[in-house]
């Protein structure tokens, strides 16, 4: 009983700390840099979504950038063509990407491992061309510019946003919005993976044969994982569109898919807390590597070397490191004497 209370207390403490960090992080950086943090939040949401698919269900996706494109373009098209308020498009963007995620999940029933990775990769590579093809809806190669087409629907165009009577800068607003959605998404994901549903996903990952013989419907849970993961990617894409105020095919190249996967792997597949570090890694590494030297080729080299180094030093990602650090505490909490 005391042990259980201690466990609950520990979680509450962590949650309170996370909330404090969330509320006060922007006060430690300049106004402009809170926009960078907001951008990291986009990666965070997409990575949490991918983690369910790859980390917990064992399905590799190299097509998450394309799912983000679905979300981003849904938001942009609704704002530009239908003059919706930008933030209200987020749920629909998530839904649209969820449906597409479900559809991509269908081939996953027949393909596994590398073959699935290739199929989703093809989706990511084709996405920019698809976006150019349907130019009536997507603006073709030029993309859609939210600010130019319907400025009145872009929250914070005047520089400040007032929420619950408090006015804040647009950058702070974007930060709080993105990470609020990120934290709620994180909480939902946590509830999913630690409950019965999470156990089913893990069963699919660990052995499909064993899962089927225990009565798990593979088709249902694989497509479900793709759909949920798609919703997260769509929401992330919508937030990206709102932050950049512009979407074009260059925003959603297959490189974005790779970045999200890198973030998930660095964060530690199958671990949720590590995802924050994975997102920060993906957001800040390009900047840091340009700072080493901006000579042609050098940033890319530093970038690649950093990823390799992380993989050598932390094969289980940042999440694995966190788990190891917390081990003395958690083993005492959860093992019975």
């Amino acid at each position: 009983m005391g042990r259980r209370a201690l466990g609950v207390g520990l979680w509450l403490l962590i949650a309170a700390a996370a909330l404090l960090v969330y509320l006060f992080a922007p006060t430690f950086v300049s106004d402009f840099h809170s926009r960078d943090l907001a951008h990291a939040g986009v990666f965070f949401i997409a990575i949490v979504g991918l983690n369910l698919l790859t980390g917990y269900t064992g399905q590799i996706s190299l097509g998450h950038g394309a799912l983000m494109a679905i979300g981003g373009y849904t938001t942009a098209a609704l704002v530009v063509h239908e003059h919706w308020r930008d933030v209200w498009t987020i749920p629909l963007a998530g839904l649209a990407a969820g449906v597409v995620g479900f559809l991509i999940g269908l081939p996953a029933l027949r393909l596994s491992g590398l073959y699935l990775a290739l199929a989703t990769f093809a989706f990511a590579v084709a996405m920019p061309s698809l976006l150019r093809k349907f130019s009536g809806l997507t603006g073709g190669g030029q993309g859609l510019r939210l600010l130019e087409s319907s400025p009145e629907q872009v929250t914070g165009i005047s520089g400040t946003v007032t929420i619950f009577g408090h006015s804040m800068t647009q950058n702070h607003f974007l930060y709080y919005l993105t990470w609020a959605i990120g934290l709620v998404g994180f909480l939902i994901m946590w509830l999913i993976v630690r409950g019965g549903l999470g156990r089913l996903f893990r069963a699919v990952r660990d052995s499909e044969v064993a899962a089927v013989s225990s009565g798990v419907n593979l088709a249902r849970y694989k497509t479900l994982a793709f759909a949920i993961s798609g919703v997260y990617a769509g929401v992330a894409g919508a937030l990206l569109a709102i932050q950049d105020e512009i979407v074009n095919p260059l925003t959603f190249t297959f490189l974005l898919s790779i970045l999200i996967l890198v973030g998930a792997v660095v964060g530690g597949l199958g671990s949720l807390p590590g995802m924050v570090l994975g997102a920060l890694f993906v957001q800040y590494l390009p900047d840091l590597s340009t700072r080493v030297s901006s000579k042609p080729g050098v940033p890319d080299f530093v970038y690649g070397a950093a990823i390799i180094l992380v993989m050598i030093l932390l094969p289980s990602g940042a999440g694995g490191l966190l788990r190891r650090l917390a081990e003395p505490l958690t083993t005492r909490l959860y093992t019975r004497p």
Partner: protein
Amino acid sequence: MKSRVHVILGSLVALAIAAAASGASTPGVTSTEVVIGGTTPLTGSASAYQSVARGAAAYFKYVNSKGGVNKRKIKYIYKDDGYDPARTSEQTRELVQQDKVFAIFNSLGTEQNQATRPYLNAIKVPQLFVASGATTWGTDYKQFPWTIGYQPNYRAEGTIYGRYVAKTSPKARIGVLYQNDDYGKDLLKGLTNGLGSKAKLIVSKQNYDVTDPDVQSQVARLKAARVSTLMLFATPKFAIQTYVYARRLGWRPKVYVNAVSSAANIMGLATNGTNKKQTEGSLSIVFLKDPTDAHWAKDPGIKLYRSIMKRYKGGNPNDVYAVYGMSAAHTFVAALKQAGKNPTRESIMKAALRLNVKNDPFLLPGVTVKTSSTDHFPLDQAKLERYHNGHWVVFGGLFRVR
């Protein structure tokens, strides 16, 4: 607890805003410095244009060495956007919010500047001397009063080509390759206007997107349409490709190459990638002194240009884009001088709208930089030039283009 945190947070933000407002000084202007910034493609498909920013930066250093403007040194920050409008937005925001620039100066590209224009106008930051000839910079000033362009506009350029073709080769079969954005469409519209009743001479129109890898299939289609006169309304990379693919197909049309790709070094690359015959006889317009033109070898303006490029490491001195950058910088300095002892964003915008600079040493003789409250096109004069034996040769008189 959460609401208290919000109250604290809210009051902090309010305090910060109040503090900023009470300062009332112009961002980017101190007693010793004026900070301006812009974006340019240091990387990517249009990276040839980075010489514009480098030339401008060298000229500002030269002005600073002479004591600056009203004892203020000009600090010019240019950032790489890779010619991607989404990155232009991001970098411009950084310039305004992080580097606290006084104004955005000469950012390059049509779509790129269109992407930032609503933002800059919403927060009233001058977007000065946009490095793009799209017509919108000069015509849409009522909607975007904080934006002004620089070079002769693309529609006017297209009109010159149209009139010239209609006059000199009324039986031409005209093909057009244009970039699929406002820049390419402006040129095409101008061409059609200039051709007037001869507009039906256009037998094929092909376009490409900035994000396309190449224009191979477009060139093949133009050849298949038996085009004899090719309007090349494309940026340098695609313009060079067009010459190269045409040569591979054994096709040699008469080429009108738009001014944004007719720099002597670009034509040199196109010639090296093909042969002398392929580029011979190409036509374009010009408003700057071409540093590779022997005609200007002893010209004081080009001499000054070469010494600045050498002294302040502006890059390849044979690159006319650097001359362009220097001319834009020269115009900015003129505007800053007119903006008063303590320039504000309002005063520089006003100054930019009553320019009358006749002595810009980097422009063709007779070309003036002139604006007024109703004329938002700083440059609107140009001459025709013909590529002959590896060099551009200017011919004919000065056109006033509108």
